Structure formats: structure tokens, C-alpha cells
């Protein structure tokens, strides 16, 4: 990209900013709607418990986002090495002394403050990969380059996956997409995607075969079976998915109206969390659900524009990483909720309840906005 020394007006992506604000506020409304009933029961009648918590963190995150967006993104590239180190320390720490919630050690906390280090790992991988790919340049298609990328991503993804499979998949996915974008030999990556898709389609028979030769454990096979026919397992594995499907199905074209969901009354477990999309479907109908998807698509379109016009490769890759992160999570979340893929815990960005998630998402958005801010508009 040719550079002009002329001082020109800087760009700032207000469309993206608006989309972020809109999604966050919409998320707060939906969290209130989805959680007020259970919150009221569990938190001494405080129906807004989840919403106020999320709202406070989102406000903080918003300020942080604006600050990050005004920084030069090259500055924090220097800390990528340190970030990897911190990520490793935190992940090991969480595996050893993490707080256990629902049998999984995912939380690291002191007193009332706690957070999920996996969210930090995601942002670390984005920055580190962007830095690495920029540094190695053309080596990106050579085995050595690929090996270095794999060395950063896979071990981190692995340790995350040990406790949180879906986050591991997302991290690996982010790395994969970034490599794909940087690479010139796209066929290899396309092949990988095709292979994965085929495996998905034939998951049932393959799973059976793998269980037979004892690679897949029975409980994992069970998940696949549940996915293939959730109504056959209404009380065991299929409960969450089935309740989600009830919610989605009862929505119809225009939904029951905001706040009118019945499935949120304790039927869908933690409706404000992973399954929030099903409540959106129930209350706002197909119309509302498609609107949400369209906003995410618009967001991705903005990312693409920014990446395409980024002043350098590093900036473009950061935006690509963030885009990969958002896209993967949105797609996987909706796919899980609609039972298109086997159930795994993935939150819907900006909308699902989760303090760490919204905080780091805001930081990521700040990074993207700061890249957009570096775009110089030609006069």
C-alpha cells in the first residue's frame, strides 16, 4: 500500500462503533429478559442482578475500548511475547488453583473478582499470530513458518481445551483463519475445511466406528447421539438442547414478544448464557433472530473493510483475528443452539452474559477501531 506523507484526515469506523454499542445494549436487554425470573428467585428478588453486573463491566469495557482505539496498535505488538508468557502462567494457574464451577476449572479469582483466562488467551493468540506472521513474511507458506505458528497456537489451544473444549477450538480456529488469510497456498486450508465438514456430515457412523475401536469414549459418543436425535434423550444429555429447541420453535415468525418467554423460567438452564439466542428466538421470533444475525454480518463486513484498507499487514491481521474470533463464536453458538452441531458451551459475543468475555471483546473492538483509526482518507 503506497504511503503518502501528506497529512490527511484520519478515519474512524463509527458504523462499527454503532454496531458494537447496539449489540451490547441489545445484549443487556436480552440478559435482563432472560435472567430476571431466575435472578429474582436466586438473588433475593434482585431481578436485574445479571444485567447490572454485565452493564457495569460493559461500561468499563467501553471506556477501555475507546482508550485502546486511540492507541497505536504497533505499540502493544511488542508485548506479544510477554502476553504469551502471562497466558501460559494463568492457564497453568487456573488448572491448578482455579475455581471449580460445574465441575470445570475455568475461573481464576481473588475474592469477589474473578475472570476466565481463556478470554485473555484468545486476544493473546490474535496479537501474537499477527506479530509472528508479519515478522516471518514469506516464510508463512514454508514448513518452518507453519511450525512456528503451530507452536504458538496449538499448545495454548491444547491447555485451554483440556478444561474448555470449545474455547480451545475457537483459539485453534483463530490461528487457522489468520494463517489462511496470510497464506498464498489457500488450497491446503480449504482442503482442511472440506475434510472437517465431511467428518461432521458423517459424524454418526464415524463416531460409532471410533467408539468400536475405542478411540472415542462412550460419553463422547453419547453426545453425538444426542445431537442426532435430541428428543430421544429428553432428560439426560438432550435436555438443554431440547429446551432450547422448544424455545426456538415456540417463537414462530414474530415471537411471543419481549419478556414473554416461558422457556426462560427455569426450563432453559442459564438462559442468559450460552442459550440466550434461543430466548431471542422465542421472544422476537425469526424476525428478531435474523436481525441479530444481520447485525453480526454487518460487523464482519466492517471488519473486512478495515482489514482490506489497513495501513499494514499487522493491522490487517489483527482485524482478521478479531473477525475470526467473532465469526467463529457467533456461528458455533447459533449452530449449537439450533442443534446443527453437537452441544458445546460457546457464548454469543456481546449478548451472552459473561464479564470477562465482554471486557476482552471490548478490548478487541478497541484494537480494530485503532486499526481503522490509522486508515488515512485520501483527500
Amino acid at each position: 500500500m503506497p504511503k503518502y506523507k501528506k497529512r490527511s484526515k484520519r478515519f474512524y469506523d463509527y458504523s462499527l462503533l454503532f454496531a458494537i454499542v447496539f449489540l451490547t445494549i441489545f445484549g443487556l436487554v436480552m440478559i435482563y429478559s432472560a435472567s430476571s425470573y431466575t435472578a429474582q428467585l436466586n438473588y433475593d428478588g434482585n431481578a436485574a442482578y445479571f444485567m447490572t453486573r454485565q452493564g457495569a463491566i460493559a461500561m468499563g469495557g467501553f471506556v477501555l475500548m475507546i482508550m485502546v482505539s486511540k492507541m497505536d496498535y504497533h505499540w502493544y505488538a511488542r508485548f506479544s511475547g510477554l502476553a504469551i508468557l502471562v497466558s501460559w502462567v494463568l492457564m497453568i494457574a487456573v488448572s491448578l488453583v482455579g475455581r471449580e464451577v460445574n465441575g470445570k476449572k475455568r475461573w481464576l479469582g481473588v475474592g469477589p473478582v474473578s475472570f476466565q483466562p481463556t478470554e485473555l488467551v484468545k486476544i493473546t493468540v490474535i496479537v501474537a499470530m499477527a506479530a509472528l506472521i508479519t515478522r516471518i513474511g514469506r516464510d508463512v507458506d514454508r514448513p518452518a513458518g507453519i511450525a512456528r505458528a503451530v507452536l504458538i497456537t496449538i499448545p495454548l489451544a491444547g491447555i485451554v481445551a483440556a478444561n474448555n473444549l470449545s474455547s480451545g477450538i475457537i483459539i485453534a480456529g483463530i490461528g487457522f483463519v489468520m494463517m489462511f488469510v496470510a497464506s498464498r497456498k489457500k488450497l491446503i486450508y480449504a482442503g482442511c475445511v472440506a475434510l472437517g465438514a465431511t467428518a461432521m456430515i458423517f459424524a454418526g457412523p464415524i463416531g460409532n466406528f471410533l467408539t468400536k475401536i475405542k478411540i472415542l469414549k462412550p460419553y463422547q459418543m453419547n453426545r453425538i447421539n444426542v445431537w442426532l436425535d435430541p428428543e430421544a434423550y429428553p432428560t439426560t444429555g438432550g435436555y438443554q438442547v431440547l429446551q432450547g429447541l422448544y424455545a426456538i420453535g415456540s417463537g414462530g415468525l414474530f415471537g411471543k414478544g419481549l419478556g414473554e418467554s416461558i422457556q426462560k423460567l427455569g426450563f432453559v438452564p442459564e438462559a442468559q448464557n450460552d442459550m440466550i439466542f434461543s430466548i431471542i428466538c422465542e421472544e422476537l421470533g425469526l424476525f428478531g433472530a435474523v436481525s441479530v444475525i444481520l447485525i453480526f454480518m454487518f460487523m464482519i463486513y466492517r471488519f473486512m473493510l478495515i482489514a482490506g484498507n489497513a495501513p499494514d499487514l499487522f493491522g490487517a491481521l489483527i482485524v482478521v483475528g478479531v473477525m475470526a474470533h467473532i465469526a467463529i463464536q457467533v456461528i458455533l453458538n447459533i449452530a449449537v443452539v439450533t442443534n446443527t452441531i453437537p452441544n458445546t458451551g460457546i457464548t454469543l459475543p456481546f449478548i451472552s452474559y459473561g464479564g470477562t468475555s465482554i471486557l476482552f471483546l471490548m478490548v478487541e473492538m478497541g484494537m480494530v477501531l485503532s486499526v481503522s483509526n490509522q486508515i488515512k482518507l485520501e483527500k
Partner: protein
Amino acid sequence: MVCLLSCLLMIGLTGRLFFLMVFRSQHYSQMAEDLHQRERTIKAARGRILDRNGTVIATNRTVCTISVIHNQITDPDQVVTALSEALGLEAEDVRKKVEKYSAREIVAVNVDKKLGDEIRGRHLDGVKVDEDYKRYYPYGSLASKVLGFTGGDNQGIIGLEVKYESYLKGTNGLILTQADAAGVEIENAFEDRVEPVPGADLTISLDLNIQTYAQQAALKVMEEKEAKRVSVIVMNPQNGEVLAMVNVPEFDLNDPFTLNMEPEEGSTASRQDLLNQMWRNPAINDTYEPGSTFKVITAAAGLEAGVVKLEDTFSCPGFRIVEDRKIRCHKVGGHGSETFLQGAMNSCNPVFIDVGQRLGVDRYYQYFTQFGLFGKTGIDLPGEAATIMHKKENMGLVELATVSFGQSFQITPLQLITTASSIINGGNRVTPHFAIQASSADKTRVHRFSYPVKEGIVSAQTSQTMRYILEKVVSEGSGKKASLPGYKIGGKTATSEKLPRSLKKYISSFMGFAPADDPKVIALITIDEPTGVYYGGTIAAPVIADLFENILPYLGIEAEQEETVSAFRIYG
């Protein structure tokens, strides 16, 4: 390109959503609805039972169910003290229920409405007072074994309550509400309501006044004679409507699970057996040897077949030898020479043995069937007992002889009075019954019950002759004590020895009807195991006389100035 792929995937998911939310919508909404909907029933009021004059003899009373809802209680101590004091329960038991973590815990049921209102008035958080119906019988034990009572779900258990369950019970209403995952109803949620339909009111043929008087009379004789039981049936012989059915001792319908007497010493019967015994209606559930009252049937059969006439003469030496058996008459010295009419008036066994023998087994059996004595009367009460009779092929002349004067087989008192009614009413076999009509609470739908009548079981002439004979029995024969000045009463006495004969226990009975020439009312009393004098003519007949004296004017049958009994007699 990544962007494109993402968009494609999202469009794919939109397609999936479209499929789920449009094509599968019905399926999932239905499943969700099934999951959310809770049904709460609204009890339908049970139909009342009215006597023939419209007096309510079974109705409903509003009672309250007191329950506590754990997570609505704000002050457990206050609730515990208030409830235990008001309901007279142990504070500890109430506390257990208050502290139990459940959606709803019932503390007390069938609480009086007044007390329930008072508890509701205290506005205790978490205490719920629900109103409910409970069956109530204003006349307590009156006709207890006929009316029957209801159980915990307001369902009929015995008597008319169970027989007419389908008319009385009504249709429960429904409140369909939405509930959350814990089963707690959602306030202000859309509510579907199906109104309950109250049960139909049942009008029965029973007359409260006759029943009351008959019960008093029965109780009096039971006490005087220290009898075990006394049953009285009063019915209209023309159509089979039962006006009274008394079985003392009765039991309290408002408290049917308390025994009305102490169980006998050394009795091994379980409580439930004793209760069942108490609830039994001996007039229809138990059979007995009718004894001399059954001579009415033998006489009717003999007259109908033409094997005997009123003036046929018989001789009674005090016994009759049938095959190798010597069968005694109740009068040891014998009645000597007598006409058939006199034999009937004397209740002479040899006369009726002779009539039976003249008929022979085949013809006797044929009339037994023709009169409807086999099987049941078809009364609208549950558990009617059937006749126990010799098989035709096992019936020899000795059996025939004993059957002729009412022994060696068993029928219910109701069967006897029904058959007698049919013989004296002109030959129409009626179906005894209680229910007259069922009408919906708003009187818009009325169902009148009808019962089969079999005509011509005896000729009108035989019927008339029988009325004459039986009138003579009362006016001049063994039933003298049933006669009432100014009234033409017909009747027949009986004293049956209970089995085994060695116990010397008796059932004294009297069956009477009035007016003798056009019977409007017939009554049968059976006194089970009287002590002292046990002759039906001596102890049972006066009770019916007393009853008739009181109910005949009530029924609009006035006493005549002169006795003109035999003036219109026509020989059969």
C-alpha cells in the same frame, strides 16, 4: 473470502432457523406447551338428593383445606402458633410442614368454613385457605343404608350415592395455567378456564316423613324385643316406588367410618369387615327364609293354576307326611277340618303343603319363575342378593312341601314384598325403585327414570281373590293384631326359624297392605332375632298397624265409617 465463508455459514444457519421456527414451530410449541401447562381442577358440586316432596336429604357443605407454601412464608413462628392454635394441632407437626421445602403442604382438610374464613382473615403470608365441598346429610342416620355416603374424592361409596354416581358427580372444571420449571404457577399468565358442571339433583321416591316414622317404629320394637336388627320396607305396590326402607340400627352418614356399636367380645373380624357389616342393607343384601309370608305365593300359584278354590276343604291333624317325612304344623293339635280360606287365615302348613303337592314340582317351579322370584328384583341399589333356590332336578316332594310354606330356600325381604305387590296389584310385576328423576342444577335438563313392568303374572281375578284372602287373614285370622278400625288391611304373618334350627333363633315378620281392595301402600317388617315372644302375628303385626295408622291419613287414605269388607267380594 473468509468473510464470504462466514456469511455463507450464517446464511446457512438462518436457513436452519427458518426451518426450525416455521416448519417445526408447531411441533416444538406443542411440546413446550405440554411442558408448561399445569392443570388445576375446580371441583364440581355434587348433585343433591331430594325426597319425593323435595326435601333435601343429601347436600354439600363448604369446607376448607388449609395449606402452607414454604417460600411464601415470612414469619414461620407466627404461622406455626396461629395454625396450631386455630386448628388444635400439635405445634411440632405444624412446624414440620411449615419448614418442609415443598411447593404446597396441606396442614388440615375438611375444616369448617367459619374457621377457614377466620384463618384467611388473619392474612398470614404463605397460608392458603382453599374451599372445597363435602357431602352433608342433614338428617344424619336417616335411610343411611339406602342413601349411602361419599369418600374423600366426593365419590359415592355405597347406596344411591354410588348407584347414581354418574348423575350426581358432575364434571370438574379446569384451570389451565402456565408454570415455571419448578412447577410454580406464573402469575398473570394466560389462563384457560373450563367451568365445572354441577351434578344433577336426584329426586327419589322416599318420603322423609314415612321414613322417619318407620324408623322410630322399628327402633322401638328393636329395643322392646332386644332384637338384633329390624328392617321395614314401605312401598307403593302399584308402581314399585319405595316410600321407606329402614334398617335399624342405622349409622351416621356424616361419620360413616365410626362403628355404630361395640364389636362383640372375642370377635376376630377386622375393622373393615365390621364397617362393611354396618353399611350392609339387609333388606336387599341379605336373604332369609321367608316362612309363612311366602304362603301368599303358594296360594296365588294354586289359585292361578285352578288346583284349589276358597271353599275346598282340607284337614289338618297337626302334621302332614310327605314321602317318609313328617312335617309339623305350628299348631300341635292340628286345625282339624278347614276350608282353604280358613287354612290361609290359620296359616296352616298342611293346607299349603297340599296345595304345593297338587301343583307338583314342575308347575310350582313354573309359577316361581313366572312371578319373577328367580334372580333379582332390579332395584336401583348396588349389591342386591339373588334368590337361593333348589335346582329343579334336585327338588323332590319333600322340598316342594317345605317351599310351599316358605322354608328351605332364601329370598331377600325386598323380593318378597315385590312379588307380593305384583300379586295383589292385579298381576303386574313391578320393579322396586328409588330414583324418580334427575334434573340438572339449572333445571334445564330433566331425566325421568323408567322401570320395566311385566304384566299378567297372575290374572286379575286371582289377584282379587288374594286380596280378599289376605284381608281375611287380618280381619279374622292370624294377622288380627294388624287390623285398624275403619281400614281394610290385608296381610300375612310369618315366623321363620333361622338356620341352624338348633339355635332357636327367629325372624318375625309381617307383610301388610292397605286399602285391601285397592292397595296403595304395602309394608314389610322383619324383626331379626327377637327375644321373648317371637310370633310374627304377635310382635310384627302391631308395628305395621301402628305405622299404617299414622301414614294412611298422611297418604290421603281416609278411614271408612263402616266395615263393609265382604260386601263386594267376588269368588275366584
